[in-house]
């Protein structure tokens, strides 16, 4: 892949990637996966980065209006999901089904 894209590394303050001492901060492994997924789909030409950052800003604004909050990467994931569905990569049904499957399996693994 090419070098990191400044469109991604330097976004508007409102949606800028969380950093600590300049470095990206991922609070949990899934956040890094979600980050990577969004970047890879952009590099694959599924959407221009502008569409993603706009979507993230819209998601943030919508939540604010509802008076609810979500973490940065929860909003990121929501944006990613909506774009992937809008571009016809996945359907909401298969995504829901697969999530439920994983949840069931995780439940199985942790309860004895």
């Amino acid at each position, binding site marked *: 892949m090419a070098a*990191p894209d400044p469109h991604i590394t330097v976004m508007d303050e409102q949606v800028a990637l969380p950093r600590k001492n300049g470095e990206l901060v991922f609070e949990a492994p899934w956040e890094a*996966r979600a980050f*990577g997924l969004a970047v890879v789909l952009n590099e694959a030409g599924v959407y221009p980065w502008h569409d993603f950052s706009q979507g993230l800003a819209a998601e943030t604004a919508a939540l604010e209006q509802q008076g609810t909050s979500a973490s940065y990467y929860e909003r990121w*994931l929501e944006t990613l999901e909506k774009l992937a569905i809008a571009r016809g990569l996945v359907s909401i049904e298969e995504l829901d089904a*697969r999530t439920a499957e994983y949840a069931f399996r995780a*439940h199985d693994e942790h309860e004895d």
Partner: protein
Amino acid sequence: MSGDQHDSHQTGTESYAALRTKALESLLVEKGLITTDVIDIVVRAYEQDIGPLNGARVVARAWVDPAYKQRLLADGTSAIAELGFGGRQGVDMVVLENSPTVHNVVVCTLCSCYPWPVLGLPPSWYKSYAYRARVVREPRAVLREFGLELPASVEIRLWDSNSDIRYMVLPERPAGTEHLSEADLVPLVTRDAMIGVARVQAPAIPARR
């Protein structure tokens, strides 16, 4: 989404977001749209890219290479470009050397001008009105809040970044690091030291003997 419950993850099970991410990834992999490897590569590249690391490389080089240091202080933009780091055209980089008697601190009193090609994105406090206003009025007090106590004999020089000139501090090489190589010095150099609100500390345990 978990709404306004910040503590939405149940112990022992994965959060909804984690499951959802895994589901999306597995579907995209199945459809042949992505591979898991490429995600790993991308994440690693972004984790290592921007950030204060570029500036740390500049500082470490200047510590070990006196000729480079001279070029760096004479013409920051060109010397930084030698290492492959550059920013927008028309923005000059000026590097300020700290010494036992002079301590430089960088601020942008107007907004948040920052040498991002070498330091990445500015921390939120750098952009805060409190820092921008107070560091000019009472630099010693502000530095103390950062945990940096400077003797009264040390002169503090403040540098106001703007759209044409971006400043970066060349911190003093800490005592006890004479045996360290350039590569070993790089991780010692922090962002805060290159803004001038901290000093570079020698490693607690010497990396090599």
